[in-house]
């Protein structure tokens, strides 16, 4: 009989914690257009798969009236579950409990579930919705943040780490997401900044709204802090499910293989690229034509759209696509594009995901702003990332591959395993017009009709050099292929790269230019 009584008492105790900050606070959360922390977890995880731990953890602060304050779960829900069968660790800050503020015990619940994820080798998902450090706990809160950052760093490259910003995430709190692999944001709900509008106005006199300073769109389009942008929380949580299905549980595994499927995109690969080399096209159509079921999960779609990155499947296995996008800024490499691609390449390499590079790039973006923003340093990240990667690396040159960009886009010289080029590819030190102007300057200057001579020399250059055969003659290109053979050849390349065994010299770690 006493057991029965204890069970009833337990249920009551649990029910109390599950109410978070209570009915009023939950109504307030709903009024802000936000789901509760628990509802988010339950939607994201498979039905009945969520198991919560540390429900009864209590804070130990005794100052500032905190001794009488009871905080359900200390403002954070932690546990394990599955997403379409894949095991994950998860935590969600509960804004209804003292604004989701982070105290030491709150942080220790998070670090405990992170340690578990790292030991059990599964992804860790953190849902952030917090007013920031719990000021009453002072340095205890700071210690908590630090302990989280340390674990983010230890887990980096070992297990996938995902941050979901579903509320404010300000001050020190922003650095945990920044250290993780993927950050998800939602329009009108996510707010991320180091110093908020109030401080900025007081100190600098600049007036700006929270949304304009660090809203979802800002981080998705301008800063590049966010990787996935959604209109609603539900859309955001669905994006996470898609991502989890495409990446491995840890660096010791490969992503789950599913049944191979043919692309469904019905545009012919021969008709996507315009004949005029100056005309753009959407390179994502090439990806759709290559990937299984024509599915492609694009990462950082709005930031630096002149390069496209994301995951798809080929023959049922996950690959990472990196592609120049002629539709934006002619597909040039610039600071942001290099930064974006480099981090993605490193993620793929860390998690055993082969990289397929689709190249059509005219060079680096010229401009004072680019040079002063450090295009040398940022551009170098890409060289580093490709060179360092030991996963299978396949490149298809679709149209242009000029100069430094040719080297950067996973060239043979940086260790590409397979280099394919379409028959119209131009692999050269620069575009024919620029090259002819330099090489034949004297002839052009001395000619009676300079424009006619320039045109003649440009054509001469195109004939001789703006094709894939010069590079093929040197063995820098392995095969010049027809567009319609591309998928078959990539599938074959992936198949014969299964046992790739590539080693790097012993090092504690490299010193990449970041």
């Amino acid at each position, binding site marked *: 009989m006493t057991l029965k009584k204890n069970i009833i008492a337990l249920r009551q105790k649990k029910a109390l914690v599950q109410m978070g900050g209570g009915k009023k606070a939950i109504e307030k959360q709903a009024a802000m257009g936000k789901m509760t922390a628990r509802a988010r977890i339950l939607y994201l995880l498979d039905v009945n798969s969520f198991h919560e731990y540390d429900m009864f953890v209590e804070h130990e602060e005794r100052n500032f009236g905190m001794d009488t304050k009871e905080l359900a779960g200390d403002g954070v829900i932690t546990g394990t579950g599955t997403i379409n069968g894949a095991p994950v660790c998860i935590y969600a800050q509960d804004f209804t409990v003292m604004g989701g503020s982070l105290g030491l015990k709150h942080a220790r619940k998070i670090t405990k579930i992170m340690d578990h994820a790292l030991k059990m080798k599964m992804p860790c998902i953190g849902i952030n919705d917090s007013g920031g450090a719990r000021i009453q706990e002072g340095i205890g809160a700071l210690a908590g943040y630090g302990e989280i950052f340390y674990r983010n760093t230890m887990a980096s490259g070992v297990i996938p780490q995902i941050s979901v910003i579903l509320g404010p995430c300000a001050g020190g709190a922003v650095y945990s997401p920044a250290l993780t692999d993927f950050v998800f944001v939602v329009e009108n709900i996510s707010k991320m900044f180091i110093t908020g509008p109030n401080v900025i106005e007081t100190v*600098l*006199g600049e007036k700006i709204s929270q949304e304009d300073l660090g809203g979802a769109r800002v981080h998705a389009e*301008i800063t590049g802090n966010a990787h996935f942008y959604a209109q609603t929380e539900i859309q955001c949580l669905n994006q996470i499910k898609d991502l989890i299905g495409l990446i491995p549980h840890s660096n010791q595994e490969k992503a789950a293989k599913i049944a191979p499927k043919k692309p469904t995109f019905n545009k012919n690969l021969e008709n996507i690229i315009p004949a005029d080399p100056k005309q*753009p096209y959407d390179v994502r159509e090439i990806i759709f034509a290559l990937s299984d079921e024509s599915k492609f999960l694009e990462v950082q779609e709005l930031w630096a759209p002149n390069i496209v990155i994301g995951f798809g499947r080929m023959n049922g296995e996950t690959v990472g696509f990196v592609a120049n996008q002629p539709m*934006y800024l002619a597909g040039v490499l610039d600071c*942001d594009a290099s930064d974006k691609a480099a981090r993605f390449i490193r993620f793929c390499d860390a998690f055993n995901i082969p990289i397929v590079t689709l190249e059509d790039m005219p060079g680096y973006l010229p401009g004072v702003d680019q040079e002063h923003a450090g295009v040398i340093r940022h551009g170098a990240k890409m060289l580093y990332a490709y060179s360092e990667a030991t996963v299978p690396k396949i490149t298809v040159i679709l149209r242009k591959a000029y100069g430094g960009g040719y080297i950067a886009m996973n060239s043979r010289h940086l260790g590409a395993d397979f280099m394919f080029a379409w028959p119209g590819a131009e692999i050269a030190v620069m*575009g024919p017009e620029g090259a002819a102007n330099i090489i034949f300057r004297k002839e052009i200057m001395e000619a009676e009709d300079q424009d006619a001579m320039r045109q003649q020399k440009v054509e001469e250059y195109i004939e001789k050099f703006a094709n894939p055969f010069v590079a093929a003659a040197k063995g820098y290109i392995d095969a010049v292929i027809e567009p319609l053979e591309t998928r078959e050849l990539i599938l074959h390349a992936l198949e014969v790269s299964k046992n790739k065994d590539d080693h790097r010299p012993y090092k504690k770690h490299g010193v990449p230019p970041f």
Partner: protein
Amino acid sequence: MAKKNQDLVEFAVTARKYKTLLTNKYKNRKAWVDPNPYEIQSFIPGTIIEISVKEGDVVQEGEPLLILEAMKMRNRIQMPFTAKIKKVNVNVGDRIPKDMLMLELEAAEEEEES
């Protein structure tokens, strides 16, 4: 796509001009302007709390011009080289943005003050 095609612009990378779309970030970038040594601009947003010169003054290199308070620091702005104050565009108490033209200078006349 139809709308996109209307927005296509000519975009030069080396000698060839490509048809492409521009990003907002690219459109909003600041054009480089050659710095004019005769223009004293604010390097940080802040408040003017003291002005030590007036129009027409010839000020020696290194002498104080004004104090710009920002981030709780009083930044003493000094004369970069000996010259004459042509125009003062700020008043004490003004809250000014970054890169504001605070003072305009002109070359000091030949005759030396005796």
